[in-house]
């Protein structure tokens, strides 16, 4: 097994472990598990054994809910766009537009960073980010401990 393969496997199992601690309560963990199990053949087998049997019906339900969610968001946005026609001075409008664009760009980037972030609205995104950052921190902590421990083991095997 090559180094990159090992690394991939280690990362996958670390991510799955992180996701399984959240017990499918958060969207990012579910998305992470779904991504891992739909990614490749060997990955699928591994994820099923790490997480036990994740029922396919649940996955179907989840995709359905996300679909309806996105539709709802779109309709809301249309409504907001209609409401946005207000009397304002021109420069204020331009400034407002620029600021909004900036925020939108960053929001999109954050969505691409979060697992399963594509189907989240803004409120949900911020909540999930909170949770995800907390878990990532814990993961980094654990992995750092692992690395130091294994290095210690090599240095003095007794």
């Amino acid at each position, binding site marked *: 097994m090559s180094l990159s393969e090992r690394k991939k496997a280690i990362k996958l199992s670390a991510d*799955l472990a992180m996701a399984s601690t959240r017990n499918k309560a958060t969207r990012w963990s579910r998305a992470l598990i779904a991504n891992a199990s739909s990614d490749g053949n*060997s990955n699928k087998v591994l994820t099923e054994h790490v997480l*036990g049997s994740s029922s396919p019906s649940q996955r179907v339900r989840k995709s359905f809910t996300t679909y309806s969610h996105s539709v709802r968001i779109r309709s809301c946005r249309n409504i907001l766009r209609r*409401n946005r026609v207000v009397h304002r001075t021109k420069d204020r409008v331009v400034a407002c537009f620029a600021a909004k664009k900036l925020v939108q760009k960053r929001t999109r980037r*954050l969505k691409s960073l979060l697992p399963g972030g594509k189907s989240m609205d*803004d409120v949900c995104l911020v909540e999930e980010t*909170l*949770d995800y950052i907390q878990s990532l921190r814990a993961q980094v902590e654990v992995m750092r401990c692992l690395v130091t*421990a294994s290095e210690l083991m090599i240095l003095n095997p007794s």
Partner: protein
Amino acid sequence: MLHCANTLGDMTVLERMKWQEEEAFCSGFSSVFCSSSSSSSSLHVHDSIMLAAESGSALAEVVAQANVQAHAQAHVSPSISRTFSCPPTLVEPDPKPKPKPKPKPKPTDSSIGIKKRKPDNPKFVAENDSSKDKRIKVGADDGESKITGHPNREEEDTKQNSKVSDYIHVRARRGQATDSHSLAERVRREKISERMKYLQDLVPGCNKITGKAGMLDEIINYVQSLQRQVEFLSMKLAAVNPRLDFSVDDLFHKEVVPACSVNFPNMGVPSDITNYLQFNLPQQQQIASYGGLVTGINPSDMGLRRTISAPVSMPETYLHSSSCFTQTLPSSTWEGDFQNICNFDFDQARSPSFPSQFFSGLVEAGNLKMEM
């Protein structure tokens, strides 16, 4: 117990942080509150924490501990155990009592008179004398003033939120726009900014930045750096592990072979390494029993536990034996788990088809868990 552990896992970070703020606010009343209302819940919570501690070697527990530590660092609170665990029990009963105090004073008001209202509230507080009820009183007061001064639509809107801070803000800006869409939009923005505040506390170096764009930038950078750190660390582990295998092999011969009390599953393992293993240590494989594996049950642990009872190779057996020393030597157990997962993965990659014995082992472990 199981239910408690479930709620522990389901709780979001946001709820925890919110609760911690409340805790900091009400810390003066904490002793009364604890003794009067939620002593049983806190006991449950202690149980669940003990359970998590018992379950020992699983990675999940380690992560949970790290979470607790992170929280303790973020907010210096008097008692970690309560801050960690009470929220699900506290948050739920909170909205329920809120409507109750409103109807209670009103009949007395109508029968006796308006002047009676002021003595009524202190009486209500004196009944229970806890911080929670004080908060309820505040909510009731606000609710009354809101009802007298506002149209129905806003009331509905605030009912949806069921949070004090939200509807105060909506009320303050009532003059601007009152149609339901802009109200909903405002509430949404409120929610986002509130969560952003929590996020600001969480991300280091985000306190000084004002403006949503800058904050988002900082958050993105932080998340990216964390993800890159994970990548780097997994790379490092992958580089370290092959050497580790050999060293652990030696260790295994030295230390674990004499210790016959080690429990580990007897399973068919589809790999070259384990063939070598079985050739070397047939007796050890015979002794195997599942008892040692199924000490503590935590639903969030299930998956990880399964990996532990999965195909075993030489280094794992050694490291598994070290899981008895979870309290004293945490680092070695983490290593054991991780090693476990990795080796498992390698086995999978080599042969996708498993012998039937392996599955039967899994089933048996599952049964034992059910019995517990």
